[in-house]
Structures are given as C-alpha cells and as structure tokens.
C-alpha cells in the first residue's frame, strides 16, 4: 500500500463525514415541525400504500393548520423487510432525524428485530403492523408502546364472536367441523395455532401448504384432504398470490364446502372479476365497500385516489392513515410533545377510523395499549367485498351456502 491508497481512504472518509453532517444540518434547520418517523417495507404494496396514506394524512392535517400550530413532518424509512434494516431505521430516525413519535410497521419478523432498538429510545411508538403474539411478549411492560393491529389471538377471538353472531342471526348457517389450510410460514402457522385455541368448541383439523409467494402453488393434496374431512367451513390462511389458484384448484377437484373462507393479508386486484370469487368469505379489517357505511372511509377513499391516482388495495392504506391521525389528535389533545402527557392523551384516543370502527386503546393479554381487537367478516358478492359482520358495519347480507359457481 502506498500513500495514494491512504489518501483515497481519507477522501472516502471525508465524503462520508460530509454526508452525515449535511444530513444533520438539513434536519436541524427544520426545528419548528413535529416529526413522525415511519418504518415500512416500501417494496411491498402494503408498506408502499401505508406510506402513501400517511403522506395523505399529513398533507391534510398540515393543510388544516397542523398540530399545535406546528406543521407535521413525516420521515419514511424502508425496512426492506429485513430486521437489521428495520433496526437501523429506528436508530436513524431516533438519532439523526430526531423524530418525536415512531409509527408504521408491517411484518412481525422485522418488528422483533426493531424492538430492541425501540426500547433504547423509549419514544412513543404507535404501531400498525406485527400481529404475532411473540411481538406482544417482547413488548410487555412498555408504557410508551401502542399497538393498533389486533394480535393473532384477538383475531381468532373476534371470528369466534363473529361466527357465533352469524349462526344466531342466520340459523341456516351451522358450523361444527372446520378444516384449516395454512401456509407453512410464521404467518399461517401462528394463525392456525391461534385458531385451534380460539375455536376449541369446534372440531378442527388442519394442514400446511406451501404458499405461491414462496414458490408453492399446488394446493390440491390439501384440498383433497379437506374434501375427505367434509367440513362445514374451509379456511385457508395464505397470501394474495394463493387466492385465485386456490379457488381454481378447489373447482378443479369439485370441492365446495358450505363456507369457503380465505384469510390473506390482501386480495389480488382482479379476484372479484373471477366467477369463482362469488360467495367466498374473507377475513380482514377493511374493504372498499366500508365507504358506503362510513363517511371517514369514503373521504379517505376519495382523497387517496385523488392524490395518488390509484385505489387503496390493502387495509394497510387506511391503517397508515389512521396511524397518523391518531398520533396527531393525541398531540393536539396533550398540547405538548412531552412523553407522559402524550401517552395519557393517546390512552384517551377515540378516533372514528376509515376502517369503520372507532379506535380506542385498552389492555390486551400482555400489553396495556392495544387498539383494534376485532376483525371483520366479509364476503365477495358480485365482484365486491361486502361486510357481513359486525352487523353494525354490514354492507350486505350473507349469501349461503358457497356453491363454487
């Protein structure tokens, strides 16, 4: 190595330091704003749309005069669906951008990697993703941690309630025997485990399959086993990529359970255009049709399309919107960014969300601040997802049984 090499090294370091200092200066110049730091997987449609919905909410709030007379400033960092990148994003937002509140979130696996970093700063965190109860265990005792998305077991409990209500309301519907087909990763498996506990009064059976998302896509052996089991209800827990092929393969082997339920985090854009979609029940927190019963949802829908010329396609879009509004309103109520006051204000949240429900924070099994607990039961009818439960937000009556036509 010669002096040349050293000089080059120095130049690189000088450049690196310049970049860091430059970023720091840029941030420091912007003192008057209230800073929200969002961490989302921008390469995935869930994170991309949530980030856009957050920008929408921030723009609306700022246009209306901001919060406490100050403008909101939104910092969005991509976690690339990797725990190490997520953790780095926490550190970046906390130490370089000096955000006041953390928002965002999608995958549990990434969030588990972010939590140690979040715990270092103990800033107020309002999270919309990460449903795994492992995350709840990791978040025990954090008074500054608010979790909006229902935990996996809450979702299960919610469906127990939903199906009980539906059976009471519509005596034609009878469920005692259920078959669960779940994708073999963390998402499907934990969902299945939770369901076994939640639906312990049913006769349950289940089998994993390999999701098309991970190179699978042949569900016929599982579907055949389900058919042999002859369930009153068939539930598959997988991803959007599984949706249409699952229906086609069920049709191929002639499997038409009275209730055909799909529980992906989002549906493919053109699922409704397939005749096979008719009568398929889906689980979720939101569907576009909720705008028919919720003015907030209608407003969100229109504003999102107006701003981005695309339709919100996942429930993470309204969740992201909710995320910003909940934080902004709490800061407004608290009148300050001081942590304890903000926590207290967040605890008093009562926000009519575009997801239909009003959001409040109450204790869950392990943590003090759990937001939504209920899911919705939806059904594809004539190409649209309609809410059939809770009855309060219902947009249509259930159609029963599933015919596979």
């Amino acid at each position, binding site marked *: *190595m010669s002096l*040349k090499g050293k000089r080059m090294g120095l130049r690189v370091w000088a450049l690196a330091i310049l*970049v860091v200092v430059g970023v720091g200066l840029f941030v420091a110049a912007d003192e008057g704003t209230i800073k929200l730091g969002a961490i989302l997987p921008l390469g995935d449609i869930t994170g991309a749309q949530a*980030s856009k919905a957050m920008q929408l909410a921030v723009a609306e709030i700022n246009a209306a005069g901001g919060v406490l007379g100050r403008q909101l400033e939104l910092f969005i*960092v991509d976690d690339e669906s990797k725990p*190490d990148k997520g953790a780095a994003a926490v550190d970046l937002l906390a130490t370089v951008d000096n955000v006041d509140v953390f928002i965002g979130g999608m995958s549990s696996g990434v969030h588990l990697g972010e939590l140690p970093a979040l715990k270092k700063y103990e800033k107020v965190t309002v999270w919309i993703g990460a449903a795994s109860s*492992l995350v709840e265990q990791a978040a025990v005792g954090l008074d500054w941690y608010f979790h909006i998305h229902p935990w996996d077991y809450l979702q299960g409990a919610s469906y127990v309630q939903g199906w009980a209500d539906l059976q009471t309301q519509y005596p034609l519907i009878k469920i005692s025997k259920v078959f669960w087909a779940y994708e073999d*990763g963390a998402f499907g498996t934990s969902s299945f485990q939770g369901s076994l506990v939640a639906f312990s009064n049913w006769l349950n059976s289940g089998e994993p399959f390999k999701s098309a998302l991970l190179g699978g896509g042949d569900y016929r052996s599982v579907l055949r086993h389900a058919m042999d089991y002859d369930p009153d209800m068939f539930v598959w827990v997988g991803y959007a990529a599984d949706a249409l092929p699952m229906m086609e393969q069920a049709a191929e082997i002639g499997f038409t359970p009275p209730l055909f339920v799909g529980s992906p985090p989002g549906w493919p854009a053109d699922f409704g255009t397939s005749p096979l979609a008719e009568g398929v029940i889906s689980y979720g927190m939101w569907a576009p049709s909720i705008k028919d019963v919720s003015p907030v949802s209608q407003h969100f829908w229109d504003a999102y399309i107006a701003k981005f010329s695309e339709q919100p396609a996942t429930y993470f879009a309204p969740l992201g919107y909710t995320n910003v509004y909940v934080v902004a309103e709490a800061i407004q109520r608290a009148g300050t960014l001081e942590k304890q006051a903000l926590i207290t204000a967040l605890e008093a949240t009562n926000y009519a969300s575009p997801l239909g429900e009003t959001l409040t924070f109450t204790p869950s099994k392990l943590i003090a601040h759990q937001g939504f607990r209920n899911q919705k039961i939806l059904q594809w009818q004539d190409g649209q997802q309609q809410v059939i439960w809770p009855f309060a937000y219902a947009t249509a009556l259930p159609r029963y049984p599933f015919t596979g036509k």
Partner: protein
Amino acid sequence: MRIARYVPYLVGAAVAATFPLFSGAYLEQVAGATLIYLTLALSWDMLLRSGQLGFGTAGFFGLGSYAAVLLFLNVGVQPFVSIIFGGIVAGVVALLLGLAVLRLRGMYFAITTLALAGIFAVVLRNFPSLTGGAEGKMLPSCIFSGDTANVYWLILVVAVMTIVISEVFERTRIHVALTSIRNDERVAKSSGVNVFKYLVFVFAVTSAIQGIAGGVYAHVFGFVSPEGSFSANFLLLPLAMALLGGIHSTWGPVIGALVLGALSEYLKLQIPYGHLLVYGAIIVVVILFLPQGLSGAARAWRGRSHAARGAR
C-alpha cells in the same frame, strides 16, 4: 518504507475500533449489520479459494443462530458461550457433511450445499416443540440490551477475527494448498497435497465462522425463525459483496462488503421507492467494467500509477 506499508491498516484499524466514539447509534447499527455481511462474504471467499463454490452460507448462518438461541434458552449459558457453541455446531455439522459432499465439485457442490441449507430450515421448522416451528423463538432480552456501540464492538471482534483467519490462510502453507487445489487439483494431489483434508478443514472453519455470525445476529436482534434466519439474503448479498470487491483475497470481500453495505443504505435513503433497481444496475455495471472487482481495479490502477512514475 516498511512502516509506511502498515499505515493504511493501522488507520483502518483505528477508525474501525473507535467508530462508535464519533458516530451515532444509526451508523453503528448500519456498520454492525455490514460487518456481519462482511464476515459472511469473507468466509464464503475463503472456501472459494479452494475452488469450491459454496451456497450453504445462509444454511450455516441459520444453523449457528438456532444452536446459539436454543442453547441460551434451554441451558441458560452466557450469550458469548452460546454464540461460540453456534459456531461449533455449524463447524461440526459442516465437518461431518463435508466428509460426504466434498467429493463433489463445481455446481454440484454448490447446489448440494444449497439443498442442505434448505433441509436445515425445513427440519428445524418441523420440530416446533424444540425450535418454535415456523414462528421461531424469541430471546427474552438482546445482548447488551441492544446497546449499539457494544454490539458494534462485538461484531467488529468477530469480523476482525475472520480477517485474521483469512490472512493466516493467505500467508501460510494453507494459501499454497488451497490455490493449488483451485488451479489444478490433480497437480495438487500429485504434489502431495491432501486435497480432501484441506477441503474438509476449510469447509468446517468457514462454516463455523458463518455459524458464529448467525449466533451474533440472533443475539443482536433477539429472535430466530426459519424464514428469517435462513433467508437467501445471507447467501446472495455476501456473494455479491465478495464478487464485487474481488475474490480470492482478504481485502476484496472486505472492500466489497463495506462499499455495498454503505451503498445499499445510502440508496435506500435517497430513493425510497425503487432503490433495489439502482442497486442491481450498479452491480451489473461494476462487474462489467471492473471484472476483477473493486480491489482488482485498485491494484491495476496502482500498478499503472507505479509504472507511470517509473517505479520498478
């Protein structure tokens, strides 16, 4: 002159060791993750120096993660002990498997190591009572309670240890043995090199390093899962780093890892939507125009400037 040769190394070492003193948590976090990848890239290259293209990096990384976490949770040893245990498990498994698979060459070896990594993940997923199944296991607390400076130093120790091992490989008879095996295995054999012994040795050592990296990663981020711990990222990114930096040397993969680690973070902040497109394009362009990698290009450039000055 002799001392001047070591100046860049000393400066590099000083900067690396004191990095947390003048950088914040964010840069420490990024640097720590980059050093993990650096360790993987370098260990992958160390095996490649024998001519064997290993695709098992993610597999041994994940195996080390699981071994460390399971020992830590079930026996309650010190985190450091469990990390070393993770390395030992990965190394011993590699040793035993190596006895069988190191008769293979070229892409047959590559694909077999990839398949073995796949088998590790599926087997671990299918024993939920021990391993937590598809959801994996969570640690009650992370190492150093997540303090980034200490975490950085821990990872730095692992990375430096790997660099030292790599340099030992480069400066001893191991270098001659591995290079001769890579260049012409028949010549190596006929010249007295116990090819199989060296291959098994390097495979075990590099796998153990990957296992240690996995154990560290698991302790830093506090969990293991089949999807996360065996992610293809732990194979493909180190591979890209080593190739971009320049293979068959210590400093190529090191430079490649540092450059790509910094680049990916920088691009992500500059181009929130679509940075991977640019990242991929940069990889393509660099490898087209600098076929010997960054370190090779630097060597060539230095050689030219030497020649221009009439030196030697």
